[in-house]
């Protein structure tokens, strides 16, 4: 009895005054997060559009640049993100069940995996820096036939993966906030909305990478 009373009080203290009940509040939060994710789809979609256009215009230059995308590293990063989505979903499940320790454990695991991804990304970028493949005044490209087109394609590579990485960094920040909140007993099986919402965000960032990986690393690789 005391437990359910406590959760009742806990859930009501999380009820903001302009909502009628927690169900309405949860529905609003969920719809709000999904509307935000729709904006993110359009945001990344613009870059996918630009990328599609240039790939279609310069297929040979594209095939030439795809040699510099390390498939193994990309695949490892893909696996890392998939693992992080798995741990994230287990974190949400732990929150649902009111298991504080498990929640924190899985959130930390997700955060670590996210940082691994970013670390690997850093090494990739570093390699590009060494190869002078970063667009700008110091750009160099071995095959002079495709110098300009390669620079455009690398520009899009950095724009797309860079924007994705920024979203990952933001996600890492959000995860950290969740960990702190969880440690301070803010969540219970009656209310864990931020965990679920940030989970949705995290999965979305994973999905963006699920498309970036084949487009940037896999296609044209055999030529």
């Amino acid at each position, binding site marked *: 009895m005391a437990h359910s009373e406590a959760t009742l009080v806990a859930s009501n203290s999380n009820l903001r005054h302009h909502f009628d009940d927690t169900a309405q509040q949860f*529905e*609003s939060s969920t719809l709000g997060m999904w509307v935000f994710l729709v904006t993110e789809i*359009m945001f990344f979609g613009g870059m996918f559009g*630009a990328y599609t256009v240039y790939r279609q215009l310069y297929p040979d230059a594209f095939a030439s640049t795809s040699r510099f995308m390390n498939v193994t590293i990309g695949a490892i990063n893909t696996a890392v993100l998939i693992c992080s989505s798995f741990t994230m979903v287990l974190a949400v499940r732990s929150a649902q069940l009111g298991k504080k320790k498990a929640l924190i454990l899985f959130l930390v695991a997700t955060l670590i995996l996210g940082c691994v991804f970013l670390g690997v990304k850093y090494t990739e970028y570093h390699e590009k820096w060494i190869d002078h493949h970063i667009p700008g*005044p110091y750009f160099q490209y071995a095959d002079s036939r495709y110098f300009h087109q390669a620079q455009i394609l690398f520009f899009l590579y950095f724009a797309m993966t860079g924007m994705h990485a920024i979203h990952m960094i933001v996600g890492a920040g959000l995860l950290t906030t969740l960990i702190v909140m969880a440690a301070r007993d803010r969540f219970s099986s009656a209310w864990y909305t931020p965990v679920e919402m940030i989970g949705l965000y995290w999965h979305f960032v994973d999905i963006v990478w699920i498309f970036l990986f084949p487009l940037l690393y896999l296609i044209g690789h055999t030529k």
Partner: protein
Amino acid sequence: MSTTLPFAQTETRVNYLNVEYGWKSWLFTTDHKRIALLYLFSITAFFFVGGAFAVGMRLNLLTPDGMFDHDTYNKLFTMHGVVMVFFFLVPSIPATLGNFLVPLMIGARDLAFPRINLLSWYLYIIGSIIALTAIVEGGVDTGWTFYAPFSSTYSNSNVIVSALGVFISGFSSILTGLNFIVTIHTMRAPGMTWNRLPLFVWGHYATSLIQVLGTPVIAITLVLLMLERLFHAGIFDPRVGGDPVLFQHLFWFYSHPAVYIMILPGMAVVSEIVCCFSRKGIFGYTFVAISSIAIAVLGFLVWGHHLFVAGQSLYASMMFSFLSFLVAIPSAIKVFNWTATIYRGSVTYETPMLYAFGFIGLFTMGGLTGLFLATMAVDVHVTDTYFVIAHFHYVMVGGMVMAYLGGIHFWFPKITGRMYPEGWARFAALVVFVGFNLTFFPQFLLGYQGMPRRYAHYPPEFQVLNVMSTAGASILALGYLLPMIYLTWSWRKGPLASQNPWNAKGLEWEQAATPPPTFNFDHQPVVTEPAYNYSGVEREVHLGS
């Protein structure tokens, strides 16, 4: 008309304005009504900033060899466009009237995300300050459309700063739209079904869909532009294989639907005003509601009509031309329905109704000329001339701004608890109407005769019409200044308004006090009647002054 006021007299009652004083209570507010006022003041300020640039332009165009050189003039029209489009028109009605009224009209205590609402205002302010920085640092001269490769490669002006300002304020727009969508879906009062929603809410819902789906694309476009200016990779540079038309595609994918962000709320306001001052329910409620959604959806399919002469393929152009014709249909449906509402209504001509009439006529003209532009063969002749400028000013200024003024007047009593002086207001409305037409009708003629847009100097044969246009602009400016004066005065010193001075239908009038308390309603409203149930109300409106 005698009405028993169910609420205590305005002065003594606690409302959202007098519940708390001090700058902190305003800058940290989460009350959607206060945030609406924060927006109102900011947007008005930017309207006059944008207007100042217009004054510069029209003064320059008094003589064929104008007073400004080309570079300066380029900056004038660019800043006029950037400020007016991104910092006035896009936020205008949604951020002010929408923010204030949507929760009231659906019977909610606030928007779904009040803190995000405040954040959206702060993002607007940050974006606008950055844009002002660009202006102060010498401006930008690319045109508000930022076309590449001039903007990405050749321009020497503050492109990155301006683009950054627009980019940040775009998030303000996205968050407002997100808030409205969620609020309208989840926070309607009991009995407020979709079929009973005021058309103002339908219009804002459709607008919010566009804001949420379109704005991210211009965000990424501006990011690519800013990165290109920094790294010069050549993504839009034809010398190295980049495609400037790609920029135009990405830019207009948002910017065309953006014009529907601007006009749909205006149409939403007109629906409310027309019903109230005809004492009639809207003719064809469902058609008007669905038309709002149709405009929002179809509006995303027509952006290529800005690229007819840019090198877009003939087949894509044909498709876009056809779709542009289609998008005119729901707008026309609305005009027919408003007209049918007014027909055989009990019409009175208070200021809001004058603005509504102005909207209907001028928007129709602007919309029809849009069809000329959608016709490829005609567009080849008039594109990039003053014909285009006249077209969009008819819909934006003759349409949107008049609707905005009409809405401000209509809901002024609700927002402030006071009445404005009807005589001055009607006079100002007429001044606006006359000034507007004198400014922009000659521009149709100029454009058709071939005067190009964005030119600082022009051939002497165009001078008469240009002088006429500038004369009209000065009258229009007076028309805008007058409300600034009397509305400000009325807020402080105007007569107290009764609970429902227009005897209008709608939860905001009937169930929320004038002005409303912070949480809008004393008791949870329950809706039992359809929208605009004017047949149940007495016929006339008495203002008493």
